[in-house]
């Protein structure tokens, strides 16, 4: 066991000293301010369009409108519950002096996770994961690595563990950086702001029966957990490709193509329902939290988690079998 910790230490040392992870932090350090600024610009335009900078008056008006509609008999009963929740949220904004269009760093973090979970975060993961095995082949160090008194599966397992740790670190840093940087513009408050969740899709309809309010910090934790799950699945498949393809460039290329194809397919062919069984069409897990429309019929959170888990399990089996059995030729 002590020996195995040593192996994980070795692999982490290599990941960190290879500077790839540093590059990822630099990317985040450049892009998060850009996204923050974009959000800020967006906010300014909306305020200008509203014609008034007084968001309180605007919010007050929205609440009154909603209450009037609640009073009417034409609104179906299941909608009423949802509308009451909406009013609660808006009242909370008013009471706590939160501008809903610019509600602070935690909201930015939440939005950032929701937007980056399907492509941006997986891309960062691929940068680290795609060379973790293939680089040993391209450097030639695989020959030393596999002629030491350690079983091959142990070596690969230590690499996988190191990869998961690195990914957790990347996610953590992403969250922290997004909070710190956006807070400069939006302020650091808003952790307890209520957020709506619990939406379900049935056929064409959005079921709001189970919609409820949770504090934003809880929502962010859940979103981070889902992002971690997505990133782990991407990392695992990347890991498999890295074992099978002995060139880092090729393994990165394959993974990028697959990721982008996955997100394109969802946009282009939502009626082709078989694509829901692919791994990379199931990455947008936070959509189930936020109630964003699910494009493909039959997808739900348990479904997507199952699909990603099955793909990951298959990826691991292939990676380990190939790594253990394969001859190390020139």
């Amino acid at each position: 066991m002590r020996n195995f910790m040593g192996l994980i230490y070795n692999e982490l040392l290599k990941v960190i000293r290879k500077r790839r992870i540093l590059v990822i932090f630099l990317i985040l350090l450049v892009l998060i301010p850009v996204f923050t600024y974009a959000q800020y610009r967006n906010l300014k335009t909306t305020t200008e369009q509203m014609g008034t900078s007084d968001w309180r008056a605007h919010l007050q008006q929205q609440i009154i409108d909603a209450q009037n509609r609640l009073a009417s008999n034409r609104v179906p009963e299941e909608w009423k519950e949802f509308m009451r929740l909406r009013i609660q949220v808006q009242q909370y904004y008013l009471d706590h002096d939160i501008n809903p269009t610019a509600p602070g760093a935690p909201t930015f973090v939440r939005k950032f996770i929701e937007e980056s979970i399907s492509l941006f975060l997986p891309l960062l993961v691929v940068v680290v994961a795609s060379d973790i095995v293939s680089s040993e082949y391209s450097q030639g160090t695989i020959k030393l690595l596999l002629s030491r008194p350690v079983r091959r599966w142990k070596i690969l397992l230590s690499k996988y563990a190191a990869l998961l740790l690195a990914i957790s670190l990347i996610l953590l840093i992403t969250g922290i950086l997004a909070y710190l940087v956006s807070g400069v513009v939006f302020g650091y408050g808003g952790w307890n702001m209520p957020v709506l969740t619990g939406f379900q899709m049935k056929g064409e309809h959005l079921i709001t029966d189970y919609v409820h309010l949770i504090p934003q910090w809880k929502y962010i934790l859940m979103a981070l957990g889902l992002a971690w799950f997505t990133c782990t699945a991407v990392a695992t498949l990347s890991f498999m490709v890295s074992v099978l393809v002995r060139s880092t460039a090729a393994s990165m290329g394959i993974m990028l193509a697959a990721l982008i194809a996955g997100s394109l397919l969802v946009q282009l062919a939502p009626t082709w329902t078989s694509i829901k069984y692919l791994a990379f069409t199931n990455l947008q897990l936070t959509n189930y939290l936020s109630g964003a429309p699910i494009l493909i019929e039959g997808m739900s959170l348990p479904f997507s988690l199952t699909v990603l888990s099955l793909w990951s399990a298959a990826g691991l089996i292939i990676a380990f079998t190939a790594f253990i059995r394969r001859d190390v030729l020139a």
Partner: protein
Amino acid sequence: MTQCDPVLSVRNLCKRIDGREIVKDIQFDVFPGEIFGFLGPNGAGKTTTIRMLVGLIRPTAGSVHIAGHNLQKDFLKAIRQVGCIVENPEMYSFLTGRENLEHFARMAGDIPPSRIDEVIRLVELENRIDDKVKTYSLGMRQRLGIAQALLGRPKLLILDEPTNGLDPAGIRELRDFIRTLARDEGIGVFISSHILHEVQLMCDRVAIISQGQLLRTDRVDRLIDGDALVVEWRMEPPARGAELLKTLPYVTHVERRDHRILSQLPEERIGETVRTLVDAGILVTGIHRRGKTLEDIFLQLTEGDPIA
């Protein structure tokens, strides 16, 4: 274990890749304290054999025993006795020399930090050990590779083309170093090379491999001391001279190498041969007698396989 038990014992080793036999039925033993040369042209199966010795390639048939442990069945016990450099001494260039050694020490599990300092001193890398490996010269990388190989106090050292890329001084240094290791620590050393001269100077015994087959295994001195004397001729025109030599019944072997002609014949018949040549109108410009070198033996055995 007694002194005469082999530290490496290879039996009927075969490897077939995509239907092609790369290594055919090889067997040999390496004993403690012995430097064993593994000689063959590029592409003869040397590297494939070495990779089978360290568990990188699974043999199609046959067995490898290291210090009595079967490599296939008891991999960890067997490989623990081995230090190796397979081809170039590739290390993690983005780590320092010391970090590389620590990395491999952690893989072995039970190597105290003092041993790391010890091997650094042994290969005289004290001054540069905390620099990144990418700043090292090839010679220094080679020494770091050897330090790494010696970390776990192996009983068997496997070196693939260890003199590749070293300058003559470096080669000489390495040779002395390996000799000392074998003599003082009783390590069995297995060295592959395509440089015959090297093997001749360094090794006690040699196995010669060509096209995947072992042609001969013997002590270097016994191979070289063979029966007949080698006479090296220079003559004009060389083609006709060689033809004539071949017709003489007491000349056992004739072969042209560039503008030289090598032949084997009894010493007392050199004069007679010169007369025959001159009578036939061939101009003899040089006669040089020398002992057989490994190169001669090698070329004889492989019948003119090109040596890279």
